[in-house]
């Protein structure tokens, strides 16, 4: 599927240039209005389920976020935007939000950088058995996130697991599940899970670069590095923007990793370690449904804003 994603990115670019050079013939007349409304037959079923599973929960959460439980009377009171004011002044919320922001700033560039290097190496034709590398590096994507966390969680353990072996071998006392190491340990799990997926997005985009470009570059005397910098990296712009946006969405909803590792180290991972964990624990630990809905909405909005800003920057650079 990564291929298709990358392809969409590059196809879009192709279409953009095509549009610039030649206006397509007017479509309007060819579409017969008779069959037009029949499009609803195909779109309708999706929209019905979409409304139930997507729009209704958002609307319901927005509604809930305007009320507050009355502990004594068991009733709800309309409080306007008070819950939102509370979220923005809630230290626990910001603690989690800043943590995922830090995670995004550090982990995402490392992961995408590794993926880029791997994609360029596999595409370079200088590698022995490049198909094998591609398949194996992609493999973790097929491993359910939960299994990945359980696996790494065991390996991080200082009782059994690899951390114990390494410590014994080197005489060190590395404890990946310590307070100071935990975020890095989570970052490692996420990197392991998704580096291959991003590699495939980049690799597929590289495959769509026309061969004549490389020939022209070779004739002009461009070396390998020059080709990478002047042809390959620019060709990857759309793919990098898409991978970044996926990573933003993934990072800001970080939940599985901290929630599962919490069973190993409940003192290190707080109930508000990430905003999503906070929303979850507010609902299921504290029964504060209204406030939990507000946290979910604020976090969704923040993610969309950041994804939008990155996309805007990305498309401006591409122009």
């Amino acid at each position, binding site marked *: *599927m990564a*291929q*298709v994603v990358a*392809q969409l990115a*590059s196809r879009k670019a192709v279409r953009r240039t095509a549009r610039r050079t030649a206006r397509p013939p007017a479509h309007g007349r060819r*579409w017969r209005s008779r069959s037009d409304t029949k*499009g609803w*037959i*195909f*779109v309708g079923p*999706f*929209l019905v*389920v*979409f409304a139930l599973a*997507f729009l209704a*929960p*958002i609307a*319901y959460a927005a509604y*809930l976020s305007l009320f507050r439980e009355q502990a004594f009377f068991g009733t709800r009171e309309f409080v306007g935007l008070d819950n939102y004011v509370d979220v923005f002044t809630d230290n626990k919320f910001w603690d989690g939000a800043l943590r995922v922001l830090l995670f995004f700033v550090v982990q995402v560039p490392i992961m995408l950088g*590794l993926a880029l290097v791997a994609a360029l190496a*596999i595409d*370079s034709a*200088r*590698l*022995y058995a490049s198909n094998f*590398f591609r398949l194996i590096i992609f493999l*973790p994507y*097929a*491993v*359910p*996130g*939960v*299994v*990945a966390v*359980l*696996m790494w969680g*065991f*390996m991080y353990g200082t009782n059994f*697991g*690899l951390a114990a*072996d390494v410590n014994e071998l080197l005489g060190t006392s590395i404890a990946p599940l310590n307070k100071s190491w935990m975020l890095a340990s989570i970052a490692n799990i996420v990197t392991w899970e998704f580096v*291959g997926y991003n590699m495939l997005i980049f690799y597929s985009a590289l495959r*769509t670069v*026309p*061969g004549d470009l*490389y*020939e022209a570059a070779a004739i002009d005397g461009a070396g390998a590095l020059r080709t990478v910098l002047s042809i390959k990296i620019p060709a990857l712009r759309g793919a990098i923007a898409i991978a970044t946006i996926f990573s933003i969405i993934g990072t800001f909803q970080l*939940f599985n990793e901290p929630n*599962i590792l919490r*069973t*190993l180290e409940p003192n290190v991972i707080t109930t508000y370690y990430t905003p999503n964990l906070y*929303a*979850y624990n507010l609902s299921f630990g504290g029964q504060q449904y209204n406030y*939990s*809905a507000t946290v*979910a*909405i604020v976090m*969704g909005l923040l993610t*969309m804003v950041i994804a*939008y800003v990155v996309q805007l920057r990305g498309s401006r650079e591409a122009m």
Partner: protein
Amino acid sequence: MSTRRTPVSPLTPRRSPLLTGLMLLFLVYTLVPLVWLILSATKTQADLFSSPGLWFGDHFAFFSNIKETLTYRDGIYLRWLANTLLYVVVGAGGATLLATAAGYGLAKYRFPGRRVVFAVVLGAVAVPGTALAVPTFLMFSNMGLTNTVWAIIIPSLISPFGLYLMWVYAADAVPQELLEAARIDGAGEIRIFFSVALRLLAPGIVTVLLFAVVSTWNNYFLPLIMLSEPKLYPLTVGLTQWSGQATGANAQPVYNLVVTGSLLTIVPLVIVFILLQRFWQSGLSAGSVKQ
């Protein structure tokens, strides 16, 4: 890949042992956890603690571990496997069907309101799935849907990203002339979809299906909050429950079962990926010919 560069002598670089060596490090990083998992699945619980992580233990307990995993607590693992399959078949299958039909409809019909659908669905792609989960739980619990299979299946049916992929794919893969010809022959719109369009859309459908299968098979957050009845759990939630058994007041660690159960959970998806590899690659090349 029609534009795939052919190996011309001045352009074909020499294979580099150095680069291959560096990539081998990458490979080791990728494989160490998986090798660890496979080796650990051959160990008894005692050996897990006493033997080195990347070597075998004293006893080869692989088959007894599998047997114990499948029979522990009256075979609840098999029940979780069946649940996962149900959620994958109905959820991912349904999601693919809905996304395919809707993507085709949006690409091939100009009906009023099309732009609104476009804007709403595109906005939905950016909504983080888990941010939606808590609100969905609150709504479903009001409707009495929590703790039923529908709580898992209904949200899985929607894949805005799948719709987007199918839409872009259908726009190119199904020629308008073909639809017109079928209409002139007197075929109805639904019949055209099933007998003409579906075949042309097949590579795109496999891609969307694969995407949906992975996300439903891996689904953890949604079932975690929706289900309180262990008999409805999918594998992911069940495994974390076994893992959680190791701590707490009545700790009953079953590490060997968690490890073996994890390995068994990975196997089907890896097989699906390898089997479908050819399909999505053909989908890829079919798409690029058109460029």
